[in-house]
């Protein structure tokens, strides 16, 4: 048992909060280096925490030595450890990427604001994954939302400000609904601790709790851009600078999905059956609509953003399958992790392509393959995960999902999953085909710092290598010995 002041759980929140403030004071140059160093430390902390949880099970840290219900508890179990690892593993390469991305003249102003906001975003995510009561989750959710909105507005143009405004309003209404749900729950039971709520709700929930569950689910679904609440995501993620889009698509939307999963598997488990089919149907609609829009759009980053909408649909397909087969949880987590890595890689690659061609359109990509081959390889590898082709993490997730669907006899989802994979192939190869076209003459491509290409490649390779070895991740998720996932 570690000493309280050395507890990695606390440092995973304190460290990013500190460097967020310090980088604001230090400025973009030194700030970037500080952030990268701190993120490296955070990676080590997350790994240490994961190893500890894998060995001894879930652990609690009482902040300031005061436990619940008056104080705040930080709970780290298998699912939290996995999400913390994902966050740190994506944030570090993206930070290295961002430091190189923001160095040219256009972007110097953006760099000043990027580091503090990114720091707050990561602190909020870490805190969210470690929270054990509903109200603390609300606070972290709001912090996450505000930081994300700030990052979306980073570009400074009218379209980005409008996208940020739209995102902010959706986010605020969603958290407001969540807060009302928390209020109703507290009013009914007098507690907001997740652990104690489970048995209480299991004894037969009053109407207020049904209402609360609905409100919270709707709010979190809107934050996760689940169809039909997805409309804010393509402008926001498509218009932001590449490192910002990577953080948002890979991490931020996963946080609200994590919450839905946590609540679904924990306190609201008795209520889950009714909404499972609805969640699945909306997920299927997201897959089909998102992929269709990705096939139609002319802008590279919009395409990748619509791909996020589609891939988030896979996550919500997990819910109707959870009832029948515990393996569906593993599928959902594997999908979240693989998609996080792959989407960050895709946005990083898209950023490089835009820097190289000077434009955001697919037509502008013609012939770029010769100039940035590593980036296109990275885009291709990330695409392999998105399409769910072997040997990637996305393929393992797809396999587990299809397996869960077939075992429970729910054939319809298999058709949706397969169709989603084929549509994803459609839009991924749309980009690759354009890039491989041979065009005569020199088309005026700009040189791009090598570091940007390498970071995209590292993230993409990680998502593919995940497909070769998922045993440790699943063992971490399931916890030591008992095989029961969480809560």
């Amino acid at each position, binding site marked *: 048992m570690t000493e309280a002041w050395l507890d990695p759980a606390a440092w995973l929140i304190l460290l990013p909060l500190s460097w967020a403030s310090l980088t604001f004071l230090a400025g973009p140059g030194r700030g970037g280096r500080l952030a990268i160093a701190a993120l490296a430390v955070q990676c080590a902390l997350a790994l240490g925490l994961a190893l500890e949880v894998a060995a001894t099970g879930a652990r609690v840290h009482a902040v300031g030595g005061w436990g619940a219900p008056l104080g705040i508890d930080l709970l780290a179990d298998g699912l939290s450890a996995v999400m913390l690892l994902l966050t740190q593993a994506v944030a570090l390469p993206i930070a290295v990427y961002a430091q190189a991305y923001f160095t040219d003249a256009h972007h110097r102003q953006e760099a000043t604001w990027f580091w503090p906001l990114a720091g707050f975003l990561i602190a909020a995510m870490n805190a969210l994954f470690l929270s054990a009561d509903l109200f603390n989750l609300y606070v972290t959710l709001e912090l996450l939302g505000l930081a994300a909105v700030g990052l979306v507005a980073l570009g400074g143009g009218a379209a980005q400000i409008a996208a940020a405004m739209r995102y902010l309003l959706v986010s605020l209404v969603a958290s407001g609904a969540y807060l009302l749900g928390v209020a109703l729950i507290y009013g009914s039971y007098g507690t907001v601790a997740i652990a104690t709520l489970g048995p209480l709700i299991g004894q037969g929930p009053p109407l207020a709790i049904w209402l609360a569950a609905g409100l919270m689910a709707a709010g979190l679904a809107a934050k996760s851009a689940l169809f039909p609440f997805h409309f804010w995501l393509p402008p926001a993620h498509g218009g932001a600078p590449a490192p910002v889009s990577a953080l948002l698509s890979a991490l931020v939307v996963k946080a609200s999905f994590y919450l839905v999963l946590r609540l679904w598997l924990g306190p609201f488990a008795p209520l889950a059956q009714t909404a499972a089919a609805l969640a699945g149907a909306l997920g299927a609609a997201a897959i089909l609509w998102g992929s269709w829009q990705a096939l139609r759009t002319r802008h590279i980053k919009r395409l990748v953003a619509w791909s996020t909408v589609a891939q988030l649909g896979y996550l919500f397909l997990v819910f109707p399958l959870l009832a029948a087969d515990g393996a569906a949880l593993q599928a959902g987590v594997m999908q979240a992790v693989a998609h996080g890595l792959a989407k960050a890689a895709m946005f990083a690659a898209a950023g490089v392509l835009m820097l190289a061609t000077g434009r955001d359109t697919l037509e502008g990509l013609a012939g770029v393959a010769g100039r940035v081959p590593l980036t296109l390889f990275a885009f291709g590898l990330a695409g392999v995960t998105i399409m769910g082709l072997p040997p990637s993490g996305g393929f393992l997730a797809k396999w587990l999902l299809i397996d869960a669907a077939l075992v429970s006899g729910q054939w319809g989802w298999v058709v949706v999953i*397969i169709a989603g994979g*084929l549509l994803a192939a459609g839009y991924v190869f749309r980009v690759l085909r354009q890039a491989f076209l041979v065009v005569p003459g020199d088309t005026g491509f700009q040189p791009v710092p090598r570091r940007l290409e390498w970071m995209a490649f590292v993230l993409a390779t990680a998502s593919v290598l995940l497909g070769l070895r998922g*045993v440790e991740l699943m063992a971490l998720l399931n916890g030591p010995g008992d095989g029961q996932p969480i809560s």
Partner: protein
Amino acid sequence: MTLNEALPLAVLASSLVPGLVIFALPEERVGWRTALNLFGAVSKLAFVAWLLIGVQAGETYGFRHTVLPGIELMFKADALALLFVTLSTLLWLFTTVYAIGYLEGSPHRSRFFGFFSLCVTSTVGLAMAGNLYTFFVFYELLTLSTFPLVVHRGTAQAMRGGTVYLAYTLAGGALLLTGIVWLHGLIGQVEFTHGGVVAALGPDRAAQLKLIFLLLIAGVGVKAAIVPLHGWLPQAMVAPAPVSALLHAVAVVKAGAFGIARIVYEVYGVEYAQSLGLLVPLAILASVTIVWGSFRALFQDDLKKRLAYSTVSQVSYIALGVALFGPVGTVGGLAHLVHQGIMKITLFFCAGNYAETLGIHKVSEMDGAGRRMPWTTVAFSIGALGMMGAPLTAGAVSKAWLADGAEAAGLNWAVWVLWTSSLLNAAYFLPILWRAWVRRPPPAWPDEHIPARGRRETAWLLLAPPLITAAAVLVAGVFAEAPWSPLAWARLIAKREYLEWAP
């Protein structure tokens, strides 16, 4: 890790590692690239030879790696695997030499040879796959690594061909995946075992097993170009000749046929498949493809398209052999896997030579080609005669065994199918030979890139591979009874697949 575990991985690594290094090489480093390519090909050949000797003696080589609980990546170099591995490895060596000559001076060669190496890695991995999961992983990797080669030229036409190719192969992969996951749900890991593994499930699962069989065969049938899933193969001919030669005449289509063999023999077991009534429909489908492919070939003027339809037809000989219940048919089909590979690659090499040297792409342009390029045309003729089943060629041997197998299985109509196909083969190959040898050459060739220098008709790198493979066609035919021939190896496999039979 023991030696028996390391060898299969070494075979994979011998093309994967050079391939990855080649990607990073700058375009101008021709010497390094050639050296890496040849080093990879030769070392792979050495490892495969070691495996052949060991498997002949009864050794087992395999490797397992757990990906998730219940899902393993597993390699098993058994006799059937080595049939395909040896074919791919030998032909990769020759095609690499050919490609170096063919692509001299073209752009993006590092990219080409990098993906070329990845393709061979995928083919070999697929051949050595020890369970359906591993097979699927490499099956899709094969699709992904062949796509950049199909679209290598970067023209709009190449892109269209690539799109069609992807659409077919990814759809096939989706069907295959569904079947595999379904089967996994029923019996857990589906390891390839002599005699099959699904018979243990019992009769109440028979309906599900039939449906799964349909999904699996449809999935691999796309790559095996079985009618009506063959549409991608003629379209994929936009690829450069080395790609068409190795990949679309050998690796990709053989991967599909190999998949059919594995599924029938080592997942379902041929006796169980027969009892479910699955083999006769497969035989019918294969026969339809044999006749339809040959028929379409008659009307193609583009030389590579004619060869593509011929491939459609000939690969289904293998499927037919698998579907003929009985060891004789098995031997015929598996031997044809090798024989058709060497015959077809010879034909494609020659087609590439005609295109590169004289700018000939169509049959109608081939008048008098035999006078100008005699050695290439000799090789072409041997390959064509092999396709027709002329005596002394490899094709004759496998056709004879297939015909015997059809009679032994009681499907006498299949013998008629084989005869019809031979006649159609003659009908579309003999005119080409007539034009090349007998007709007078035109005053000027369409686009003579490589002028004749004395007796040398074209570049040596382009001439040697087809001559060697044409010689192999004759050797495999004449020496079919020798202990080291492809036929002998096929008999070894059949002996191990069927539980009571002495060859």
